[in-house]
């Protein structure tokens, strides 16, 4: 797909509306990390991912691994926008029997390639997918979305080391650097010091962008697509809760739903007219 910057921005805006609606209807879930990642996943799916929504299990599809699987509303909104699932399916978020389970799950939802929910697992899984593609002589790529709090899991670094060792250049990470985790700011919970330097020292190609500036997001994705001799990571500086003023940079909205009044305000801010 080729979409203009303004079309991508509109794609992401629609997804933001769906994210807030999902969490509001369920009165549970994770809006903050969904809103911070959404510009990145929107651009990735709309312009880069080689996938077939009507054939979600197509062998040579690119893989997208949402390792921070609690930010599932963001992924569901994009999958609906892409046509993997319907907008009606979004009503099944956190509902018994629904495709849209609390955390993205490959057994439940078409277009989902990883059963997430436990942090620190997606990069290793993605490494396996990427190695398999190489063994298959397939052109498919594996994109993994990590949270910044998630980087505190030691297993992330086991995978990072192995990916560089095996020169797995078809493995591409996007880091949602929103500076907040569950209980508080990362700076309070566990300081991580120089994150780009850490990845470089592990043998990765690193680029930093503003994860809400669509032009920068597109050049960041260009960087990931053109780096093929080494694993690469796009560190996207984002704002948790981006697009909804009272959620922005607010640890309370990591895993909390808006009330009626807040919902109305969010819809207004996102330019959505509620009948």
């Amino acid at each position, binding site marked *: 797909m080729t979409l203009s910057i303004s079309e991508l921005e509109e794609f992401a805006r629609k997804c933001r509306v769906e994210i807030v609606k999902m969490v509001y209807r369920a009165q549970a879930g994770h809006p903050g990390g969904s809103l911070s990642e959404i510009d990145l996943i929107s651009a990735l799916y709309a312009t880069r991912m080689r996938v077939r929504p009507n054939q979600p299990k197509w062998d040579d599809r690119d893989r997208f691994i949402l390792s921070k699987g609690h930010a599932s509303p963001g992924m569901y909104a994009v999958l609906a926008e892409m046509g993997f699932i319907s907008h009606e399916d979004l009503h099944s978020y956190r509902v018994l029997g629904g495709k849209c389970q609390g955390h993205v799950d490959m057994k439940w939802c078409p277009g989902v390639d990883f059963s997430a929910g436990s942090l620190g697992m997606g990069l290793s899984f993605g490494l396996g997918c990427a190695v398999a593609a190489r063994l298959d002589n397939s052109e498919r790529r594996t994109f993994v979305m990590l949270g910044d709090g998630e980087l505190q*899991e030691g297993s992330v670094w086991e995978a990072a080391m192995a990916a560089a060792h095996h020169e797995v250049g078809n493995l591409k990470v996007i880091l949602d650097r929103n500076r907040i985790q569950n209980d508080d700011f990362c700076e309070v919970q566990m300081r991580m010091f120089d994150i780009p330097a850490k990845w470089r020292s592990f043998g990765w190609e690193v680029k930093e962008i503003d994860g809400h500036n669509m032009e920068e997001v597109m050049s960041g994705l260009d960087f990931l697509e053109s780096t093929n001799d080494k694993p690469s990571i796009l560190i996207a500086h984002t704002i948790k809760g981006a697009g909804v003023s009272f959620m922005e940079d607010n640890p309370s909205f990591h895993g909390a739903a808006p009330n009626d009044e807040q919902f109305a305000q969010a819809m207004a801010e996102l330019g959505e007219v509620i009948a």
Partner: protein
Amino acid sequence: MSEMAATRDGYGQALLEIADNPKVVVMEADLGKSTKSLHFRKKYPTRTISCGIGEQNMLLAGAGLAASGYIPFASTFAIFTERAFEQMRNGVARPNLAVHLCGSHGGTHTGTDGSSAQSIEDLAIYRTLPNVVVMHPSDYVSTLELTKQLPGLDKPSYMRTARNKTPVMYRGRESEIIIGKGITLCQGTDVAIIACGVLVSESMKAAEQLADKGINATVVDMHTLKPLDGDLINSLVAQCGAIVTAEDHNVIGGLGGAVAEHLVSNHYAPLEMVGVADRFGESGQSDEMLEVMKINSKYIEQAAHRAIARKS
């Protein structure tokens, strides 16, 4: 039984009540708001060690603290304690270091987070570790009381707490709550229901339903799975001759497994196990999950009928 409270809040309150002991330290893995250690953290920041999202590190740092004379209370979701299972095995249980691990949000009752968050195997795995005391209290008061006994326990422990509120049952009965001793909640001679955690109140409901049909059930809250109160089970066998176990946990290896192991090597009685039928959960409300998993009072009652029918 109208007062409702979450067992995880009992844990949080207990940490405050044992804080007078200067050796008590609290360890968190970015879920203190959820496991309720956050109150301790606010009041005693220097005795609270944030481990970030790093459960494995938390358990082993806890072992080091315990080996240095401290009494660490580490908590995260039940499911994420399992990430550090081998650390618990080799680093904590093997040297018998008194690290106290609390896993909140256990069981399918935890709800809409879905299968990745619903631990159905924690009680089983920790029960297999030598030296480790395993508990799953049913209400706020018993969680509070059991946790307060842990600083005096010279061994590691695992306690599962629940996310959602359950009836408060033990106000005024605090002295009956002792690690390793099951509590008899009602007496009957037809069948004994042994339950833990959120299914204790479901078992009480089942006993009422059975009473309506003229069947008298004993209900026991087996808050400690290990060491198991074998004397009590022996007396239940003698008194009732048929046993039902009930737990929001896989039927393999948990309370049902523990009771079965005891029965086959002591006094035999027919046993019906109510628990998760060796499958993963999904997103759903707590009450919906107990129905989907077939573990609410209705299914406990049915199991009681089956157990009674098997008496010889």
